[in-house]
Protein backbone atom coordinates (compact mmCIF):
# COMPACT_ATOMS: atom_id res chain seq x y z
CA UNK A 1 0.00 0.00 0.00
CA UNK A 2 1.29 3.45 -0.79
CA UNK A 3 -0.02 6.86 0.23
CA UNK A 4 -0.09 9.57 -2.41
CA UNK A 5 2.80 11.34 -0.81
CA UNK A 6 5.05 9.09 1.27
CA UNK A 7 6.41 12.02 3.31
CA UNK A 8 2.95 12.90 4.66
CA UNK A 9 1.00 9.67 5.12
CA UNK A 10 -2.76 9.76 5.67
CA UNK A 11 -3.84 9.78 9.30
CA UNK A 12 -5.97 6.73 8.48
CA UNK A 13 -5.81 4.60 5.36
CA UNK A 14 -8.23 1.69 5.05
CA UNK A 15 -8.01 -0.48 1.92
CA UNK A 16 -10.36 -3.36 1.16
CA UNK A 17 -11.02 -4.01 4.84
CA UNK A 18 -13.22 -7.00 5.63
CA UNK A 19 -13.87 -8.49 9.04
CA UNK A 20 -15.97 -11.53 9.93
CA UNK A 21 -17.22 -12.69 13.29
CA UNK A 22 -17.67 -16.40 12.62
CA UNK A 23 -19.94 -16.66 9.59
CA UNK A 24 -21.30 -13.11 9.67
CA UNK A 25 -19.36 -10.42 7.87
CA UNK A 26 -19.35 -7.20 9.90
CA UNK A 27 -17.28 -5.12 7.45
CA UNK A 28 -17.02 -5.76 3.73
CA UNK A 29 -14.28 -4.31 1.50
CA UNK A 30 -14.27 -0.90 3.09
CA UNK A 31 -12.04 1.86 1.70
CA UNK A 32 -11.46 5.13 3.46
CA UNK A 33 -8.75 7.80 3.74
CA UNK A 34 -8.57 10.44 6.45
CA UNK A 35 -6.26 13.38 5.72
CA UNK A 36 -4.44 14.93 8.71
CA UNK A 37 -6.26 17.95 10.14
CA UNK A 38 -9.72 16.83 9.05
CA UNK A 39 -12.73 15.91 11.09
CA UNK A 40 -14.04 12.69 9.52
CA UNK A 41 -17.38 11.09 10.33
CA UNK A 42 -18.18 7.39 10.08
CA UNK A 43 -21.98 7.26 9.98
CA UNK A 44 -24.05 4.14 10.34
CA UNK A 45 -26.90 2.57 12.25
CA UNK A 46 -26.23 0.41 15.28
CA UNK A 47 -24.54 -2.74 14.04
CA UNK A 48 -23.42 -1.22 10.72
CA UNK A 49 -19.76 -2.04 11.36
CA UNK A 50 -18.47 1.23 12.82
CA UNK A 51 -17.01 -0.19 16.03
CA UNK A 52 -15.48 -3.17 14.19
CA UNK A 53 -13.74 -0.78 11.79
CA UNK A 54 -12.34 1.27 14.66
CA UNK A 55 -11.15 -1.81 16.54
CA UNK A 56 -9.16 -2.85 13.46
CA UNK A 57 -7.33 0.49 13.61
CA UNK A 58 -6.32 -0.21 17.20
CA UNK A 59 -5.25 -3.82 16.65
CA UNK A 60 -8.06 -4.92 18.95
CA UNK A 61 -9.23 -6.95 15.96
CA UNK A 62 -7.16 -8.34 13.08
CA UNK A 63 -8.67 -7.69 9.62
CA UNK A 64 -9.89 -10.83 7.84
CA UNK A 65 -8.92 -9.16 4.57
CA UNK A 66 -7.44 -5.85 3.49
CA UNK A 67 -5.16 -3.40 5.20
CA UNK A 68 -5.34 -0.57 7.67
CA UNK A 69 -2.63 2.02 8.31
CA UNK A 70 -2.40 4.78 10.88
CA UNK A 71 0.09 7.48 9.80
CA UNK A 72 1.53 4.87 7.46
CA UNK A 73 2.05 2.32 10.26
CA UNK A 74 0.54 -1.15 10.51
CA UNK A 75 -1.29 -1.43 13.87
CA UNK A 76 -0.53 -5.17 14.03
CA UNK A 77 3.22 -4.72 13.58
CA UNK A 78 3.83 -1.29 15.13
CA UNK A 79 1.20 -1.35 17.82
CA UNK A 80 3.03 0.86 20.33
CA UNK A 81 3.83 3.57 17.78
CA UNK A 82 0.23 3.53 16.53
CA UNK A 83 -1.20 3.75 20.05
CA UNK A 84 1.14 6.65 20.89
CA UNK A 85 -0.19 8.56 17.90
CA UNK A 86 -3.84 8.37 18.89
CA UNK A 87 -6.36 8.46 21.67
CA UNK A 88 -9.39 6.21 21.55
CA UNK A 89 -12.66 6.72 23.38
CA UNK A 90 -14.80 3.57 23.13
CA UNK A 91 -18.58 3.64 23.20
CA UNK A 92 -18.71 2.69 26.86
CA UNK A 93 -15.98 3.82 29.19
CA UNK A 94 -14.95 2.47 32.56
CA UNK A 95 -12.59 3.80 35.22
CA UNK A 96 -11.29 2.34 38.46
CA UNK A 97 -14.22 3.06 40.76
CA UNK A 98 -12.09 3.87 43.83
CA UNK A 99 -10.06 6.60 42.09
CA UNK A 100 -11.11 10.22 42.16
CA UNK A 101 -11.30 12.31 38.97
CA UNK A 102 -7.92 13.81 39.89
CA UNK A 103 -6.32 10.41 40.50
CA UNK A 104 -7.80 8.99 37.31
CA UNK A 105 -6.33 11.82 35.23
CA UNK A 106 -2.91 11.50 36.92
CA UNK A 107 -2.96 7.74 36.40
CA UNK A 108 -3.81 8.09 32.70
CA UNK A 109 -1.25 10.89 32.27
CA UNK A 110 1.47 8.54 33.56
CA UNK A 111 1.12 6.47 30.35
CA UNK A 112 1.65 9.48 28.09
CA UNK A 113 4.73 11.41 26.93
CA UNK A 114 2.88 14.69 27.26
CA UNK A 115 -0.17 15.99 29.04
CA UNK A 116 -1.60 19.47 28.60
CA UNK A 117 -2.54 20.69 32.10
CA UNK A 118 -4.13 23.88 30.87
CA UNK A 119 -6.58 22.04 28.59
CA UNK A 120 -7.29 19.69 31.48
CA UNK A 121 -8.05 22.54 33.91
CA UNK A 122 -10.09 24.43 31.32
CA UNK A 123 -12.32 21.46 30.50
CA UNK A 124 -12.75 20.34 34.13
CA UNK A 125 -14.06 23.86 34.79
CA UNK A 126 -16.29 23.98 31.74
CA UNK A 127 -17.85 20.61 32.51
CA UNK A 128 -17.97 21.45 36.24
CA UNK A 129 -16.29 18.16 37.12
CA UNK A 130 -15.14 17.98 40.73
CA UNK A 131 -11.56 16.59 40.90
CA UNK A 132 -12.31 15.10 44.35
CA UNK A 133 -15.31 13.12 43.09
CA UNK A 134 -14.90 9.32 43.02
CA UNK A 135 -15.21 7.76 39.55
CA UNK A 136 -17.97 5.40 40.69
CA UNK A 137 -20.10 8.39 41.69
CA UNK A 138 -19.96 9.95 38.22
CA UNK A 139 -22.99 9.88 35.92
CA UNK A 140 -22.69 8.30 32.47
CA UNK A 141 -22.35 11.77 30.95
CA UNK A 142 -19.63 12.75 33.41
CA UNK A 143 -17.73 9.54 32.72
CA UNK A 144 -17.82 10.32 29.01
CA UNK A 145 -16.61 13.86 29.73
CA UNK A 146 -13.74 12.47 31.81
CA UNK A 147 -12.85 10.02 29.02
CA UNK A 148 -12.81 12.81 26.44
CA UNK A 149 -10.66 15.06 28.64
CA UNK A 150 -8.19 12.23 29.11
CA UNK A 151 -8.19 11.62 25.34
CA UNK A 152 -7.30 15.18 24.32
CA UNK A 153 -4.84 16.13 27.10
CA UNK A 154 -2.02 14.04 25.54
CA UNK A 155 -2.63 16.07 22.32
CA UNK A 156 -2.26 13.08 20.01
CA UNK A 157 -2.35 13.73 16.26
CA UNK A 158 -5.42 11.47 15.96
CA UNK A 159 -8.56 11.23 18.05
CA UNK A 160 -10.73 8.15 17.49
CA UNK A 161 -14.19 8.54 19.04
CA UNK A 162 -16.74 5.73 18.95
CA UNK A 163 -20.27 7.08 19.46
CA UNK A 164 -19.06 9.75 21.91
CA UNK A 165 -22.50 11.26 22.49
CA UNK A 166 -24.79 8.24 22.62
CA UNK A 167 -26.61 7.79 25.90
CA UNK A 168 -26.12 11.42 26.88
CA UNK A 169 -28.64 14.10 27.67
CA UNK A 170 -29.66 15.59 24.29
CA UNK A 171 -29.41 19.18 25.57
CA UNK A 172 -25.81 18.93 26.74
CA UNK A 173 -24.30 16.51 24.26
CA UNK A 174 -24.24 18.81 21.30
CA UNK A 175 -22.48 21.62 23.10
CA UNK A 176 -20.08 19.31 24.78
CA UNK A 177 -18.77 17.54 21.68
CA UNK A 178 -18.26 21.00 20.17
CA UNK A 179 -16.27 22.07 23.25
CA UNK A 180 -14.07 18.99 23.22
CA UNK A 181 -13.26 19.10 19.51
CA UNK A 182 -12.75 22.88 19.68
CA UNK A 183 -10.26 22.50 22.54
CA UNK A 184 -8.47 19.64 20.78
CA UNK A 185 -8.08 21.53 17.50
CA UNK A 186 -7.18 24.85 19.10
CA UNK A 187 -3.42 24.38 18.81
CA UNK A 188 -1.68 23.07 15.71
CA UNK A 189 -4.96 22.41 13.83
CA UNK A 190 -3.25 21.02 10.73
CA UNK A 191 -2.11 18.05 12.81
CA UNK A 192 -5.25 17.45 14.84
CA UNK A 193 -7.33 14.78 13.18
CA UNK A 194 -10.69 13.47 14.39
CA UNK A 195 -12.25 10.18 13.30
CA UNK A 196 -15.67 9.88 14.87
CA UNK A 197 -18.41 7.30 14.51
CA UNK A 198 -22.01 8.14 15.27
CA UNK A 199 -25.62 7.54 14.40
CA UNK A 200 -26.61 10.86 16.04
CA UNK A 201 -25.58 12.91 13.07
CA UNK A 202 -27.32 16.22 13.68
CA UNK A 203 -24.95 16.99 16.56
CA UNK A 204 -22.02 16.82 14.19
CA UNK A 205 -23.55 18.81 11.34
CA UNK A 206 -21.08 21.72 11.41
CA UNK A 207 -18.11 19.75 12.73
CA UNK A 208 -17.74 17.16 10.01
CA UNK A 209 -15.49 17.98 7.04
CA UNK A 210 -15.99 14.65 5.31
CA UNK A 211 -17.86 11.42 5.97
CA UNK A 212 -18.55 7.83 4.97
CA UNK A 213 -21.95 6.23 5.45
CA UNK A 214 -21.82 2.47 6.02
CA UNK A 215 -24.64 -0.01 6.27
CA UNK A 216 -24.27 -3.77 6.76
CA UNK A 217 -20.51 -3.24 6.71
CA UNK A 218 -20.53 -1.70 3.24
CA UNK A 219 -19.85 1.84 2.13
CA UNK A 220 -22.98 3.51 0.74
CA UNK A 221 -21.67 7.04 0.32
CA UNK A 222 -18.43 8.94 0.95
CA UNK A 223 -18.37 12.70 0.44
CA UNK A 224 -17.13 16.09 1.58
CA UNK A 225 -19.86 17.60 3.81
CA UNK A 226 -20.29 20.82 1.81
CA UNK A 227 -20.35 18.85 -1.46
CA UNK A 228 -22.99 16.52 0.01
CA UNK A 229 -25.22 19.42 1.03
CA UNK A 230 -24.96 21.00 -2.39
CA UNK A 231 -25.70 17.69 -4.18
CA UNK A 232 -28.65 16.58 -2.07
CA UNK A 233 -31.48 19.08 -2.36
CA UNK A 234 -35.17 18.98 -1.63
CA UNK A 235 -37.19 20.80 -4.28
CA UNK A 236 -40.78 21.72 -3.51
CA UNK A 237 -43.26 22.90 -6.13
CA UNK A 238 -46.93 23.81 -5.86
CA UNK A 239 -49.08 23.93 -8.97
CA UNK A 240 -52.38 25.68 -9.65
CA UNK A 241 -53.93 22.27 -10.22
CA UNK A 242 -52.70 18.73 -9.84
CA UNK A 243 -50.17 18.10 -12.64
CA UNK A 244 -51.30 15.29 -14.97
CA UNK A 245 -47.91 14.02 -16.02
CA UNK A 246 -44.60 14.66 -14.44
CA UNK A 247 -41.35 13.84 -16.20
CA UNK A 248 -38.57 14.84 -13.86
CA UNK A 249 -35.71 12.84 -15.34
CA UNK A 250 -33.48 11.34 -12.66
CA UNK A 251 -34.76 11.96 -9.16
CA UNK A 252 -33.72 10.30 -5.91
CA UNK A 253 -37.26 10.46 -4.54
CA UNK A 254 -40.54 11.98 -5.69
CA UNK A 255 -43.55 12.53 -3.47
CA UNK A 256 -46.85 13.92 -4.74
CA UNK A 257 -49.79 15.11 -2.76
CA UNK A 258 -52.48 16.90 -4.77
CA UNK A 259 -51.03 20.16 -6.06
CA UNK A 260 -47.73 19.69 -4.22
CA UNK A 261 -44.71 17.91 -5.57
CA UNK A 262 -41.60 17.25 -3.51
CA UNK A 263 -38.45 15.93 -5.15
CA UNK A 264 -35.17 14.92 -3.54
CA UNK A 265 -32.31 15.12 -6.00
CA UNK A 266 -28.77 13.89 -5.87
CA UNK A 267 -26.61 16.18 -7.98
CA UNK A 268 -28.96 17.31 -10.75
CA UNK A 269 -30.99 20.01 -9.01
CA UNK A 270 -30.80 22.47 -11.90
CA UNK A 271 -32.12 19.92 -14.42
CA UNK A 272 -35.08 18.96 -12.21
CA UNK A 273 -35.71 22.64 -11.37
CA UNK A 274 -35.82 23.41 -15.11
CA UNK A 275 -38.33 20.62 -15.77
CA UNK A 276 -40.56 21.78 -12.91
CA UNK A 277 -40.29 25.43 -13.99
CA UNK A 278 -41.46 24.49 -17.48
CA UNK A 279 -44.74 23.34 -15.90
CA UNK A 280 -45.28 26.89 -14.56
CA UNK A 281 -45.63 26.20 -10.84
CA UNK A 282 -47.09 28.78 -8.45
CA UNK A 283 -44.17 28.33 -6.09
CA UNK A 284 -40.83 26.59 -6.49
CA UNK A 285 -38.29 26.39 -3.68
CA UNK A 286 -35.20 24.38 -2.95
CA UNK A 287 -33.14 23.65 0.14
CA UNK A 288 -30.24 21.39 0.99
CA UNK A 289 -30.70 18.24 2.99
CA UNK A 290 -28.88 18.19 6.31
CA UNK A 291 -26.27 15.49 6.86
CA UNK A 292 -28.79 13.58 8.97
CA UNK A 293 -31.38 13.72 6.17
CA UNK A 294 -28.74 12.63 3.66
CA UNK A 295 -27.94 9.72 5.97
CA UNK A 296 -31.60 8.68 6.24
CA UNK A 297 -32.28 8.94 2.53
CA UNK A 298 -29.09 7.01 1.72
CA UNK A 299 -29.68 4.17 4.18
CA UNK A 300 -33.42 3.95 3.43
CA UNK A 301 -33.91 5.29 -0.10
CA UNK A 302 -37.69 4.80 0.10
CA UNK A 303 -38.14 6.83 3.27
CA UNK A 304 -38.98 10.52 3.24
CA UNK A 305 -35.88 12.54 3.96
Amino acid at each position, binding site marked *: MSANNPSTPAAIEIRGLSYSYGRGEAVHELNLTVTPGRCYGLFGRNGAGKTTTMKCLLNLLRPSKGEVRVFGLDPAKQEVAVKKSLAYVPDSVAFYPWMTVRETLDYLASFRDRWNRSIEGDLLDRFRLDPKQKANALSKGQRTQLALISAICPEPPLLVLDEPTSGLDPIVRREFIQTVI*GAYQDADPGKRTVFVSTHLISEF*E*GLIDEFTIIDNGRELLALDA*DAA*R*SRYQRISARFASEPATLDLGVAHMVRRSGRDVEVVVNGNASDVMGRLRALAPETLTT*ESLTLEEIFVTTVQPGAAA
Partner: protein
Amino acid sequence: MTDASMLFQINFKSGKPVYLQVVDQVKAAAASGAMHAGEALPSIRPLAEELRVNRNTIAKAYTELESQGVIETLPGKGCFVRPNNSPLKKDVRRKLLIEEIDQAIVQAHHLQVPAPEFLDLVRERLGVIDEKRRANDSKTKVEL
Protein backbone atom coordinates in the same frame (compact mmCIF):
# COMPACT_ATOMS: atom_id res chain seq x y z
CA MET B 1 -17.32 36.96 22.67
CA THR B 2 -17.10 40.04 20.50
CA ASP B 3 -20.22 41.69 19.12
CA ALA B 4 -19.12 40.83 15.61
CA SER B 5 -19.87 37.12 16.03
CA MET B 6 -23.54 38.04 16.33
CA LEU B 7 -23.43 39.26 12.76
CA PHE B 8 -22.95 35.74 11.48
CA GLN B 9 -25.55 33.06 10.93
CA ILE B 10 -25.04 29.70 9.34
CA ASN B 11 -27.78 27.97 7.38
CA PHE B 12 -26.91 24.37 6.55
CA LYS B 13 -29.92 24.20 4.23
CA SER B 14 -28.81 27.00 1.92
CA GLY B 15 -26.68 24.68 -0.22
CA LYS B 16 -23.83 27.17 -0.03
CA PRO B 17 -20.59 25.84 1.49
CA VAL B 18 -20.42 26.91 5.13
CA TYR B 19 -17.08 28.70 4.79
CA LEU B 20 -18.49 30.76 1.89
CA GLN B 21 -21.44 31.80 4.04
CA VAL B 22 -18.94 33.24 6.53
CA VAL B 23 -16.98 34.92 3.71
CA ASP B 24 -20.11 36.54 2.27
CA GLN B 25 -21.36 37.67 5.66
CA VAL B 26 -18.06 39.34 6.56
CA LYS B 27 -18.06 41.07 3.17
CA ALA B 28 -21.67 42.20 3.67
CA ALA B 29 -20.85 43.48 7.18
CA ALA B 30 -17.88 45.44 5.82
CA ALA B 31 -19.94 46.85 2.92
CA SER B 32 -22.80 47.95 5.16
CA GLY B 33 -20.47 49.47 7.73
CA ALA B 34 -21.60 47.00 10.42
CA MET B 35 -17.89 46.23 10.62
CA HIS B 36 -15.48 49.03 9.84
CA ALA B 37 -11.89 49.16 8.69
CA GLY B 38 -9.49 48.20 11.48
CA GLU B 39 -12.12 46.30 13.45
CA ALA B 40 -11.07 42.89 14.77
CA LEU B 41 -12.86 39.78 13.59
CA PRO B 42 -13.79 37.25 16.26
CA SER B 43 -10.99 34.78 16.88
CA ILE B 44 -11.39 31.38 15.33
CA ARG B 45 -12.15 29.08 18.24
CA PRO B 46 -14.90 31.13 19.96
CA LEU B 47 -16.54 31.87 16.61
CA ALA B 48 -16.41 28.19 15.65
CA GLU B 49 -18.04 27.29 18.96
CA GLU B 50 -20.64 30.03 18.62
CA LEU B 51 -21.64 28.93 15.11
CA ARG B 52 -21.25 25.23 15.98
CA VAL B 53 -18.86 24.58 13.12
CA ASN B 54 -15.43 23.11 12.77
CA ARG B 55 -12.55 25.54 13.29
CA ASN B 56 -11.23 24.42 9.86
CA THR B 57 -14.31 26.06 8.32
CA ILE B 58 -13.65 29.43 9.98
CA ALA B 59 -9.93 29.22 9.20
CA LYS B 60 -10.75 28.52 5.54
CA ALA B 61 -13.15 31.48 5.45
CA TYR B 62 -10.53 33.84 6.94
CA THR B 63 -7.88 32.61 4.49
CA GLU B 64 -10.26 33.28 1.61
CA LEU B 65 -11.12 36.76 2.96
CA GLU B 66 -7.43 37.53 3.28
CA SER B 67 -6.72 36.45 -0.30
CA GLN B 68 -9.57 38.69 -1.46
CA GLY B 69 -8.04 41.61 0.44
CA VAL B 70 -11.06 42.05 2.72
CA ILE B 71 -9.18 41.34 5.93
CA GLU B 72 -5.58 41.16 7.06
CA THR B 73 -3.90 38.97 9.65
CA LEU B 74 -1.54 40.58 12.11
CA PRO B 75 0.62 37.84 13.64
CA GLY B 76 -0.19 37.37 17.32
CA LYS B 77 -3.02 39.88 17.20
CA GLY B 78 -5.68 38.38 14.99
CA CYS B 79 -7.63 39.30 11.86
CA PHE B 80 -8.80 42.80 11.05
CA VAL B 81 -11.05 44.36 8.42
CA ARG B 82 -8.97 46.22 5.85
CA PRO B 83 -9.76 49.60 4.38
CA ASN B 84 -11.82 49.07 1.26
CA ASN B 85 -9.30 48.92 -1.54
CA SER B 86 -9.37 45.72 -3.49
CA PRO B 87 -5.96 44.54 -4.69
CA LEU B 88 -7.58 43.52 -8.00
CA LYS B 89 -7.36 45.64 -11.14
CA LYS B 90 -10.44 47.54 -12.16
CA ASP B 91 -11.30 45.35 -15.19
CA VAL B 92 -10.98 42.21 -13.03
CA ARG B 93 -13.25 43.74 -10.41
CA ARG B 94 -15.79 44.65 -13.10
CA LYS B 95 -15.65 41.15 -14.57
CA LEU B 96 -16.30 39.53 -11.17
CA LEU B 97 -19.25 41.85 -10.60
CA ILE B 98 -20.66 41.19 -14.07
CA GLU B 99 -20.81 37.46 -13.30
CA GLU B 100 -22.90 38.17 -10.21
CA ILE B 101 -25.15 40.59 -12.07
CA ASP B 102 -25.72 38.08 -14.86
CA GLN B 103 -26.81 35.49 -12.34
CA ALA B 104 -29.30 37.92 -10.83
CA ILE B 105 -30.62 38.76 -14.34
CA VAL B 106 -31.11 35.06 -15.14
CA GLN B 107 -32.88 34.60 -11.82
CA ALA B 108 -35.09 37.64 -12.52
CA HIS B 109 -36.07 36.16 -15.88
CA HIS B 110 -37.14 32.87 -14.32
CA LEU B 111 -39.02 34.64 -11.55
CA GLN B 112 -40.77 36.73 -14.23
CA VAL B 113 -39.52 40.05 -12.92
CA PRO B 114 -39.39 42.39 -15.95
CA ALA B 115 -36.36 44.60 -16.62
CA PRO B 116 -37.74 47.96 -15.36
CA GLU B 117 -38.91 46.39 -12.12
CA PHE B 118 -35.54 44.64 -11.75
CA LEU B 119 -33.70 47.96 -12.16
CA ASP B 120 -36.01 49.61 -9.62
CA LEU B 121 -35.22 46.80 -7.20
CA VAL B 122 -31.48 47.28 -7.69
CA ARG B 123 -31.84 51.01 -6.93
CA GLU B 124 -33.97 50.22 -3.91
CA ARG B 125 -31.41 47.75 -2.52
CA LEU B 126 -28.51 50.16 -3.12
CA GLY B 127 -30.50 52.68 -1.10
CA VAL B 128 -31.13 50.21 1.72
CA ILE B 129 -27.45 49.28 2.06
CA ASP B 130 -26.40 52.92 1.79
CA GLU B 131 -28.86 53.81 4.53
CA LYS B 132 -27.45 51.04 6.77
CA ARG B 133 -23.93 52.26 6.17
CA ARG B 134 -24.87 55.82 7.09
CA ALA B 135 -26.66 54.63 10.22
CA ASN B 136 -23.60 52.57 11.20
CA ASP B 137 -21.28 55.50 10.49
CA SER B 138 -23.22 57.88 12.69
CA LYS B 139 -23.34 55.26 15.46
CA THR B 140 -19.57 55.00 15.34
CA LYS B 141 -19.20 58.76 15.52
CA VAL B 142 -21.45 59.01 18.55
CA GLU B 143 -19.37 56.33 20.29
CA LEU B 144 -16.21 58.28 19.52
